[in-house]
Structure formats: C-alpha cells, structure tokens
C-alpha cells in the first residue's frame, strides 16, 4: 500500500491506496466521485476522461499512485467552469445524450476540444471526438452540440464579452 496525496476538484486528498488501483477506481470507489464512468477499463471508450493538471486524461490509463502531487478535475469539479456551462446547456437543448453513460467523458473531451480549437467545424469535432464511444445517439447531436457551443463561445469572444 502507498500513501497518496493529490488535489481532486481543488480539495487536498490523502489516502492509502494499492499501486494497482487506477485513477478511475480511486475516484469512484474511494472518493465516490461517480460522474467518471468506467466503460472498457483499457482506454478504448473514453467514458472515464478527466483532467490531470489541466490535461485531458483517461483515468483508466493512469494509476492513482502516478498522480502524487497532481491536480485532478472530474466532471463534478466543472460546475462553475465557463466552457462546461455552455456545453452542458447545448447538450441539454440539443438532445446530445440518450442513456447518458458516455456523457461525462463526452463533456470532458468536448471542453478539451473547445479549449484547443475554439470554433471547430463538424468534421474537426468528429475527428477529435473519435476516441469517445457512444452506443445510443449515432453522434450527430453530440457533434452538433459541440459545434454550437463553440460558435456561442466564439461569438462572445468576438463581441469582446
């Protein structure tokens, strides 16, 4: 067992963990932060996407012990995030989810896309989102919601707001 200290959603956390625990298991099982969903547990589906020090990460592909001293943000930590606020609204109004299983990962990755590529076109969103699997929606509404969120944020930026 190893003692692990890190920041999760801006709160300092110290826990004793097994080295084999993934960050995803640590977040869900020890901290009960269950917005982070686990689909495949080997990096194929993207449902468990979080950020580590601001960088999009598959939490199933990171051991918790590797995150010593780092700052992890899950969807629960995005309540007052400006980009996520716009995305959440467009996912809601644009019906960009059905069962909701993939949605936390979709939102985390969508935010990462908009921070790197401010007003992406649909083809770019599809390319950038290709690591996130959704089995219900056929992706059309998810892509449209992200494009619309990008346009809204881009429009605000152009207006100097």
């Amino acid at each position, binding site marked *: 067992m190893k003692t692990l200290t890190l920041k999760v959603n801006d709160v300092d956390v110290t826990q004793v963990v097994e*080295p084999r625990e*993934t960050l995803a298991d640590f977040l869900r099982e020890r901290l009960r932060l269950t917005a982070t969903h686990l689909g495949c547990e*080997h990096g194929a589906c993207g449902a468990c996407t979080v950020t580590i020090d601001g*960088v999009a990460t598959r939490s199933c*592909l990171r*051991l918790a012990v590797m995150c010593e001293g780092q700052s992890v943000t899950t969807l629960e930590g995005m309540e007052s995030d400006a980009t996520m606020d716009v995305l959440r609204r467009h996912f809601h109004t644009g019906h960009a989810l059905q069962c909701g299983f993939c949605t936390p990962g979709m939102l985390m990755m969508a935010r990462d896309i908009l921070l790197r590529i401010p007003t992406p076109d649909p083809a770019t969103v599809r390319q950038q989102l290709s*690591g996130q699997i959704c089995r219900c929606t056929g992706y059309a509404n998810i892509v449209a919601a992200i494009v619309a969120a990008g346009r809204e944020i881009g429009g605000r930026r152009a207006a100097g707001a």
Partner: protein
Amino acid sequence: MKPAPFDYVKPKSVAEVSAALGAEGANAAAIAGGQSLLPMLSLRVALPDLLVDIGGLDELKQVSATADTIYIGALTTHAAIEDGRLPDDCNGLMRMVASKISYRAVRNHGTIGGSVALADPAADWPGCLMALGAQVRVSGRATVRRQPVADFVQGQYSTTLAADEIILGFDVPRPDPGTRWGFSKVVRKSGAFANSIAFAVAQGRGGPVSVVLAAAAPRPCALPTVAERIGTGKDSEDDLRSAIVADIAAHAPQDDPYLVRLHISTVLRALREMQGR
C-alpha cells in the same frame, strides 16, 4: 480494478531506475506514460511484480537542437510533438505523425520513448525514426550507449534493451532545408492500431531517400529497392509498384493478397506525397 497486484517505486535518478530494473531476480517493468502498459496490465498480458515509474526523471524530458541534431528526450509526449514543441520537427513530419497517434487524451501522456521501447509492430515512432536515420540513447547500470533505431528494434515487442536499461532519448539528424517527406497510414478507425504505415523521406534535393514500411512485419522494414529507384528516371508508378512488391516479398512477406495491395497503396501514397512537396 483489473490489474494483478504489483509493487511500485518512483526513483529520482536514472541510476536508481537501473538498479531497480536490473536487481537480481526482479520481474520489473518501467512505466513512462503507461498508455500501452496500463491496458496490458488490465488485460493481464503484462504481469510484473514491480513497476518502476520513470515519469519523475526530468533529464528525460529535455528537447534541444544543435546545427546537426535534434535531441528528443524519451518522456516527450506525442501531444508535445503534435503541438510543435520540438525545436525542429523534420519539416513537419514528426508533427504529422504525432497528431495521428491514438486519441488526444492518450497523446497527452504517451511518450516517444515508451513507444519505441515497447516496439509494437503497429507503432508509428519506430518506423518514423528509422526513416529519419535516428539513433537511440540508452542508459544502464554501467554504460550509456547509442544505437541506430533500425538496429535497436529487433522484432515484435523486442528490442536490444537489457533488463537494467532504459531509453534516455533520441538523436535525430537535422534535415536539410529541402528535405521532403511523405506519410501514409491506414487504420480501420482513427486512433486504432494501424494496418499499414509508410514513411518516405528524401534528404535535401537529390539526396538519399529512405522508405520504411511499418505494421506489415514484426518490425518496421526499410524498402531499399524502392528507395534506390526514386530520382533515377526508373520511378514511374509501374516501376515503383514492382519495386515495392519485390521489397515486400524480401523483407515483409505477406500471406494475404489484400495486405500486399494495402501496403503497396500506403507506400505509393507516401512516395507521391513526398514527390509532390
């Protein structure tokens, strides 16, 4: 939680890493970004007793350039290369290759050193670094050595790394300003393992050409007959096709006629892209 139990250490120096990896009777594995190793641990195809995390070694994160050489530390991530953080990315070739590896969240942690050390036949960096004539710097308990990447990668998941050794970084010859390149990769779904990858690099104008095919054999293979034909006047599409067929038969024989056609296509596309630059 899917991985079997193991112990974990995160040394602060290369010497400590080598001591841990090379200890008598150690069943240890080095972990850098972990983007390939974590799935292997979760699927229990890798069963180490000890993981040695090399992520804390700042000297492996350096990138630098001299007039002749670009040095890329082993812990440089695919995303860093994709974002143009190398002092020179071989006229854009390395940036393009990086941007096509897996997915952004994986590229944020996956490293160039990890990719070459694992030596997956479908990986991008071993073939790319071979085409660029790069050397790998390797450190063990006693020595630091250099070796061409072409000799370092021996086969599927097989390199010349000894138990106590890790990759420090890569020395990539700085390309002449006129260097042209082509890169073609076929994947069933973006981010999936590649079915065929071809690299073509022409050093300067009229300089030597190197053509490398990856994901076709246990290790990336150079296609020397194809490379020799470029710029000789015997490089029509038909000439190149027959040279590719001969090189594949000699260096990466295929059982499946579809795969032969696939590899011919990626090599031709890479050559056309190079010639069009």
